[in-house]
């Protein structure tokens, strides 16, 4: 069981979350060319090692989180809310991540 330190709820089993995807992808503007969208949707780096990904705390606060996790050891280096605004508020309040 991977344990994710949700900034809003505290340490939780990963089975409380649904897995999202690659958090390093920057989706282009809606009117960007097809090639930019193709690359964002379909191409992945898929590293063996530390990478960042999204998780959705569906059985908790329903917040999306960005997690830095090693795909070989499953060690988690950091967890922050995906939404920068929320992240800023949590930082200011001294969050637990």
């Amino acid at each position, binding site marked *: 069981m991977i344990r994710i330190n949700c900034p809003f709820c505290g340490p939780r089993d990963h089975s409380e979350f649904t*897995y999202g995807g690659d958090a390093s992808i920057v989706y282009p503007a809606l009117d960007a060319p097809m090639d930019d969208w193709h690359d964002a949707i379909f*191409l992945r780096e*898929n590293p*063996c090692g530390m990478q960042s990904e999204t998780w959705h705390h569906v059985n908790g606060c329903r917040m999306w989180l960005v997690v830095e996790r090693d795909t070989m050891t499953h060690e988690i280096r950091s967890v922050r809310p995906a939404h920068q605004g929320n992240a800023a508020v949590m930082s200011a309040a001294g969050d637990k991540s």
Partner: protein
Amino acid sequence: MTRYSAWAVLKAGFSGQKNWDRQWRDPEPQKRYDVVIVGAGLHGLATAYYLAKNHGLRNIAVLEKGWLGGGNAGRNTTIVRSNYMMPGNRQFYEHSLKLWENLSHELNYNVMFSQRYHVSLFHSPAARDAAARRYNTMRLTDSDGELWDLATLKTNIPHLNYNNARFPIIGAAVQKRAGNARHDAVAWGYARGADGYGVDIIQNCEVTGVTRVDGQVTALETSRGRIEAGKVGFAVAGNTSRLWQMAGLGRLPIESHKLQAFVSEPLKPLLDHVVVFGVGGAHFYISQSDKGGMVFGGDLDWYKSYAQRGNLPIVQDVAECATSILPCLGRVRLLRHWSGVMDMSMDGSAFICKTPLDNLYLNAGWNYGGFKASPASGWYFADLIANDRPDPVIANLDLDRFRRGVIIDERGAGPDPKLHG
């Protein structure tokens, strides 16, 4: 190479088993090969075999970082079927099944392919109709497939859960020519066959670098030295992205995910068919091996991983599915569970294609269904490498299909790798 037969076994019995030789050599790597295949799993070994057999090539090496057949080849749940519906997949998997049907004779190695029926349960009229579309397509394209109503299913498999299922079974889609095979035997059979044609299988040889000059691969750096190559093929399910990046090629429509598999203690015959169950968001498959263990599995662990170890939530999910369709499994004991790392692709279908480098070829993206594809994968990959162009059957199994808008998506799940498990 001694021909295997009952006669040979009899002779061996009298000679104290002294008349057997190595099933494949353990050669030192040469400085150069015309074709180097990276990955001695089922697909890589099959490719080498067909390169030699179908195309008469001889100066071939297969490089394997561990021991041949030690990756997903030895970890899967051994189901062989061809019930794919999408154009391209349909023809590919059908060809594979036909190769399976004669594989033991082809390789002179008993791969124990048992055509014991693949029985896919459905639980609603809509699911039955969706199955009908798939199995009608199979029947119209030179394959077998049928629907069983509840009465027929009960006669064939009386001990499924017909009484208190959350999703009552109403029937099943059946492919009778589908079944199981002994995964190790396929790897060893192809290895022995390829080796018999002079293919060098170099084990404990990890590729650590890919040397490129002017849009071509010229050599591979390995833990056993530098090996020059005329053509290179990658067949390293689970680790494709790492090799791709070694070749300086960037990103791929692939994510590595792990899939767990399970085996029970060995039992007297309990289940004669392969049974598959998929409803309520669950996905589960089970069969019984010839040694008597129940072999089964379910969904991915959901998160990306290169670690060949699974976590408990999926163990519970799979146990729930198992007992919900075969309630007698409650007292059957799990003996072992393990996992393999797979290339999950953006539409659930594979890649057998050329790459941006002229002499580099890619075989990847098999998701959780690589075992059944092994013979055809080797066949078509060998053909691609030998002739430097894809056979029409695999024309859309290329990396550019997403740019074109060709989506070979059996599940209809969209561009999210984890949903194609």
